[in-house]
Structure formats: C-alpha cells, structure tokens
C-alpha cells in the first residue's frame, strides 16, 4: 500500500530558536498579543510503500532518526494518511 507520511520536526524545548523568537517579535508587532511562544521547525512529506500504516510510521521514525531530524537539538513526530 502507498502511504503519505508527514514528519514534523521542531527544536527541542530549551534549545535556542532564533527564528521562533524573530517570528514572535514580528507577530507582536502586528498586534497578535495573544502569542506567548513560537517555535519554527520543518515539515517533510514522504510517499512510501509499506504493509501497514504502523509499518509506514515505524519506517518514517527510523528515517527521522537517521537523517530528517537531528536528535541533538530537534524532536520529531510522524503521522500517516492512507492514500
């Protein structure tokens, strides 16, 4: 089966995120006062062949750990949608 995986990558809590800080400042400048924190990450979309959704997610997590995210400073979450 073909699945589309979405890998969401974010800076770990406590890690320096100057992009997030800059975006937060810009939003505040536009009057969005309700924003208290912004983290800027990355989203990777993958189309994969797998036996099951669970299998696809497992493989996606392996890919995230091996290359897509840097576990030293980033966390990741893999979600699947059946195609």
């Amino acid at each position, binding site marked *: 089966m073909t699945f589309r995986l979405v890998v969401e990558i974010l*800076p770990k809590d406590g*890690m*320096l995120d*100057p*992009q997030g800080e800059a975006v937060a400042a810009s939003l505040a400048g536009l009057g969005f006062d309700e924003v208290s924190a912004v983290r800027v990450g990355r989203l990777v979309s993958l189309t994969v062949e797998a036996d099951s959704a669970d299998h696809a997610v497992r493989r996606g997590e392996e890919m995230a750990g*091996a*290359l897509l995210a*840097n576990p*030293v400073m980033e966390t990741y979450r893999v979600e699947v949608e059946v195609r």
Partner: protein
Amino acid sequence: MSRQAVVIVFPGSNCDRDVADAFFVATGESADLVWHTEFSAGLAPLAILPGGFSYGDYLRAGAIAARSPAISALRQHHRMGGMVLGICNGFQILTEAGLLPGAFSRNRCLHFLSQDVCLRVEENDSPFLSDFQPGEVIDLPIAHAEGAYQAESVGPDRGLRVALRYSTKDGAVSPEANPNGASGNVAGLLDETGRIFGLMPHPERNADPIFGSAHGGRLFRSALSAVSRHG
C-alpha cells in the same frame, strides 16, 4: 616526500582551494584537492573538510555530506590513525556525522556573520594545537549563518574537549564576546583522541602574514609537524 594532506571537496564546498593555498603558504607542502567520491582512507595522514555549503546546506548544514560514503572512509581514516580537520561547514559535517558531539543552529542574530573574532585556546594536547599555549588568545575570521553550537552540556564533565572559545582580546569568555549564541562560547572542539579538530573560524583566511597575525598558519604548521613526526 609523500602526500601529507588532502582536502575533501563536496558539491557546494567553496573554501577548498583557499585551504590548499593557505596550507602551502604556511607549510611549504601541498594539500591536494580530492573529489569526495575519490577519497579513501590512507590517501594522506591529514584529511581536511573545507568550508562552504556542501549540498547547498539542504535539510541542515552538513547533514547530507555527513551521510555520504566519503565520511565512512573518513571514519576508517581516523581509525587508522589519521588526522581530521573540519573548518566551518567541515565542522558542521563532523557533528552531523557524530565524529564530534553536539549540533549547530542558526546564529542568534539570524544574520550571516563575517568578521574577525578573538579566540581563547583552551588546551593544546592535540597535534593541531601543539604550537599554541593554553590561555593564549588568537584571532581568526568567522563566516557563517549556522554557527551557534548546541550541546546538552559544554562542561569537561561530559567529556567534551573544547579547544577554542570566543573571547575578548584579553581572553575573557563572556556573552559580549560570543558572536553567534554558541553554548559555552564554543568555537572549536577536539574528539577524545585529539586527532579530530573542528572549528567554526577559518584558519585559511589568516594564514599568510599579509592578512594579519597569521595565526591560522600556525595551526597548519602544527598539524604538519605532527604528521611528519608520526608519519
């Protein structure tokens, strides 16, 4: 004399020829450029990963190059007793490959920084630093956008061997002397053997006396004298 040093060139490397020129100016020995697919362990005692934007900095700086066959060969080169110098993007490749600990994020200011910095030498128990004294302050240029070193801990208790920290010209390691937001003002790291050295500043851009103190040239001469002693 057999070949002493090679510079590994990836698509997007752009300081490769500068390093080779500076190495020659400082030491009188050639450092040959080697395309990454042609690199193998045993080519030369010293392998240099130059600055630039390998693979366009896609995904994260150094991430793609770190997973290339050339880096597998580099691991073997190191296991065989070889020395590895990673400059700027080369340092990023070494952390991405896990050959040095930690990682890099965008500069705190978000700008690309191109400026001279002062660096305090923290230790000299490495073939790259035998010509330097601990506590000595040297100056080298930096030129990077993703230079903020990140690590869970930057203390010696975690086995991290910090070789260079951003400092004032008097050697004070302070927030004011930190150009990019690096944890612990870390600018250069050694592995546990001392034979892998990664640094964000560019020694090749201050290796010839016409550029100033030429402290970068001392680094190349230290490395070459170690190669000559052991090789």
